[in-house]
C-alpha cells in the first residue's frame, strides 16, 4: 500500500455567523496517497469545498478551523504560519477552481498571471520564465500558446480558460492538485476533454489528485478511490470499484440509486432520499444522517459513528450498516 501524501485527521471547521455557528466540518478524516486520484463526493453544501479550502489554509473569518491535523510531506499544515503556507500553495499543493470566467483576473493577461506564479515559486525571470510559461500551456494542450500568453481572459473561450487555470495549477509541478468541480461550469463537450486532460496529466506527471465533485460519473471515470461526504462528515471511503459494486452506507447506496441511467426503464420513478439536508447550525445529534437513514438505530442518536474498516480498504461510518457487515 502506498504511503499517504496527504493525511487529514478530525478536521473541524466552523463559521461564526449572526444566525449561529455553522458546523461545516465536524471531524473529517481521509487520506490521499502518492500518485492516487481520490474523488470527494457529496451533494451541494456538504462541505467539500470547505474541506479543500481548509487544506490550503484559505478559510477566512468568520470561518475558522477549530480542530484537526493535516499532514502533508511530514508537516502539519494547520500549525504552519501563513508565510510558510504561501510556499506550499501553488507549488506543492495547487487548486483548480470551478468557474474559469470568474477565477481569472480580467485585467491582466494570461501570460502575466501564469508567469506570476512561476516567478513567485521558482524565481525565474525573462526568457526562462517565458519558456516555462509556454511549457505549462503546452502541457494542457493549449493551441497556439504564444498567442494565448498575450491575451486577456475575455478573449478566450470557456474551455481554453479552464485549461489556463489548470496550467496555472501545474506550472510548478505540485505533488497534489485539488480540483474543485472542474467541469461544472463548462459545457458537456468540453467536460470530456478536461477530464481526459486531467487523467493524462496525472499519469504523465505522477501527481496525486483530489477531485471534488457531485458527479459520480466523473469519479467512476477518473478516480482510484472515493470519499463520500454528507453534511460535514465522511460516511464512506473505498476503492472506486468496491464502492460502486458494493456500497455499504445507506447514503452511498441511495446516491448510486439516484443516478439516472440510459439503461433504466423511463417509466420507473427515480428514487430519491427522503427528508432534507440538515441545518448545520443545529445538526442532528451524533450521526447527522440518522433522521434519513433506512438502517437507523437508537445508538445513532447518542454516539457518533467513527470510520471503521469493514472490508479491505473499505471504511464506513455508520452503526447499522457496519454491524450488518460484521454479521455477514
Amino acid at each position, binding site marked *: 500500500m502506498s504511503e499517504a501524501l496527504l493525511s487529514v485527521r478530525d478536521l473541524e471547521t466552523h463559521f461564526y455567523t449572526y444566525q449561529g455557528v455553522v458546523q461545516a466540518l465536524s471531524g473529517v478524516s481521509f487520506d490521499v496517497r502518492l500518485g492516487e486520484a481520490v474523488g470527494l463526493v457529496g451533494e451541494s453544501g456538504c462541505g467539500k469545498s470547505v474541506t479543500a479550502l481548509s487544506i*490550503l489554509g*484559505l478559510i477566512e473569518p468568520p470561518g475558522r478551523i477549530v480542530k484537526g491535523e493535516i499532514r502533508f510531506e511530514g508537516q502539519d499544515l494547520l500549525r504552519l504560519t*501563513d*508565510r510558510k503556507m*504561501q*510556499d*506550499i*500553495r*501553488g*507549488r506543492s499543493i*495547487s*487548486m483548480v*477552481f470551478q*468557474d474559469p470566467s*470568474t*477565477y*481569472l*483576473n*480580467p*485585467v*491582466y493577461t494570461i501570460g502575466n498571471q501564469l508567469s*506570476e*506564479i512561476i516567478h*513567485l*515559486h521558482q524565481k525565474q525571470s525573462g526568457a526562462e520564465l517565458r519558456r516555462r510559461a509556454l511549457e505549462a500551456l503546452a502541457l494542457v494542450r493549449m493551441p497556439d500558446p504564444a498567442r494565448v500568453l498575450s491575451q*486577456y481572459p*475575455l*478573449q478566450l473561450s470557456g474551455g481554453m480558460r479552464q485549461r489556463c*487555470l489548470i496550467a*496555472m*495549477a501545474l506550472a510548478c509541478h505540485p505533488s497534489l492538485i485539488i480540483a474543485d468541480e472542474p467541469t461544472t461550469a463548462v459545457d458537456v463537450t468540453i467536460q470530456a476533454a478536461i477530464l481526459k486532460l486531467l487523467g493524462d496529466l496525472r499519469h504523465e506527471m505522477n501527481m496525486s489528485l483530489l477531485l471534488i465533485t457531485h458527479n459520480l460519473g466523473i469519479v467512476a471515470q477518473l478516480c482510484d478511490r472515493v470519499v463520500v461526504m454528507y453534511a460535514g462528515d465522511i460516511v464512506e471511503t473505498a476503492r472506486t470499484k468496491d464502492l460502486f459494486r458494493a456500497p455499504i452506507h445507506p447514503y452511498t447506496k441511495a446516491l448510486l440509486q439516484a443516478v439516472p441511467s440510459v439503461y433504466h426503464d423511463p417509466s420507473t420513478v427515480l428514487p430519491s432520499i427522503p427528508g432534507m439536508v440538515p441545518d448545520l447550525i443545529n445538526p442532528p445529534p451524533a450521526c447527522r444522517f440518522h433522521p434519513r437513514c433506512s438502517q437507523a438505530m437508537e445508538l445513532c442518536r447518542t454516539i457518533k459513528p467513527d470510520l471503521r474498516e469493514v472490508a479491505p480498504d473499505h471504511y464506513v461510518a455508520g452503526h447499522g450498516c457496519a454491524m450488518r457487515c460484521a454479521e455477514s
Partner: protein
Amino acid sequence: MKIHYLIIRRILQTIPVLLGVTFLTFSVSHSVPGDPARAMAGIYATVETVEAIRHRWGLDRPLPAQYVIYLRGLLHGDLGISIQTRRPVLDDIKDRLPATLELTLFAALLMCVIGIPFGIASANWRNRLPDHFARLFVVFGGAVPTFWLALILQLIFFRWLDWLPAGTRISREMVEPAHITSLYLLDSLLTGNMPAFLDTLEHIVLPGITLALTGTVGIARMTRASMLDALQKDFIRAARANGLSRKAVILKHALKNALIPTVTVLGLLFGAMLGGTFVIEWIFSWPGIGTYAATSITNLDYTAIMGVSLVVALVYVTANLLVDISYMILDPRIRYE
C-alpha cells in the same frame, strides 16, 4: 473595436457638447437684466452713443443672429471686454489661467496621493481603526465648507503659528522663475532654482490642501467601495490559492480592478475642484481665474463672468475627455469587446 476608433469617437463626441456649452453661456448672458448696450456705454452716455454701441455690437439683431456673431467671436478668441480691467477678457484669463491650473493640478495630485491610499487602507482593514479614521475623515471632510476651512487654516498656520504665508503665489522679494510652463513649481525645478521652488511650495500648500479636500474625500470613498467590491471577487481567492501574499493580492490583483471605477470619478472631482478655486483663490489672494471671477461678481462684470465660465467648462470637458481616454486604455475589457 480598435481602440483608436474608440478614442476618436470619444473626441468627436465633445464637439456637440462644446457647441451646447456656448449656447448655454450665450443664453445665460442674455438673461442679465438691464440693457447691455447701456452698460457698455456707461452712465453718462447719450442716447445716440448707446444706439451706436447697440448697432456696432449687433445687439439690435434677432437672437439667432446674435448667437452666430457670438460664436464667430469665440472662434476668434473674442470673449468680450472686461468692465473691471477694460481689457479683453481673453487676455485677462490668459494671464491668470496658469496659476489656477497649477493650483488645481497640485490639488489633484494631493487628492490621489492621499485619497487612494486612504481608500485602500480603509478597505483592507475594514471596520477596524484605519477604516474608522478614514470614514470619520470622509464624513467631516464632506461637510466642512471649504471657504471656512481656508480661513481657519490661514488663522492657524499664518496668524497663530506663523509657519506659512497667507496668500499670493510667491513672495514679493522673490524673482519669478523662468516662464517655461508658467507653472512655478515645475519651472523652478526645471531651472534648478531651489529657493524659488521652496518659496512657491510654501505658498501653494495651504490653498492646495483646502482645495484638495473635497476631491480627497470623494476619491477615498470611491476607492474604498471599489476595493471592497474587488476583494470579493473569485480571482482574489485564486491568487491566494496560488501562493500570493495578502499584500501582493491587494496591491496587484485587487487594486487594478478597483482603480478603474475610481478613475471614472477623477474627472468629476477635478471639475468640483475647478469650481472650488472660485472661492479659495479669492481667500488666498491667488492670482488665478478664480479670484478674477470672484471680483467680477462683486463688480457685476457679466462679460468676465461668462468668459470665465466658458473657459472653465472647456477645461472641464478636456479633463473628462482625458479621463475617459485613460479609462479606455486601462480597462482591457473595453479594448477587446
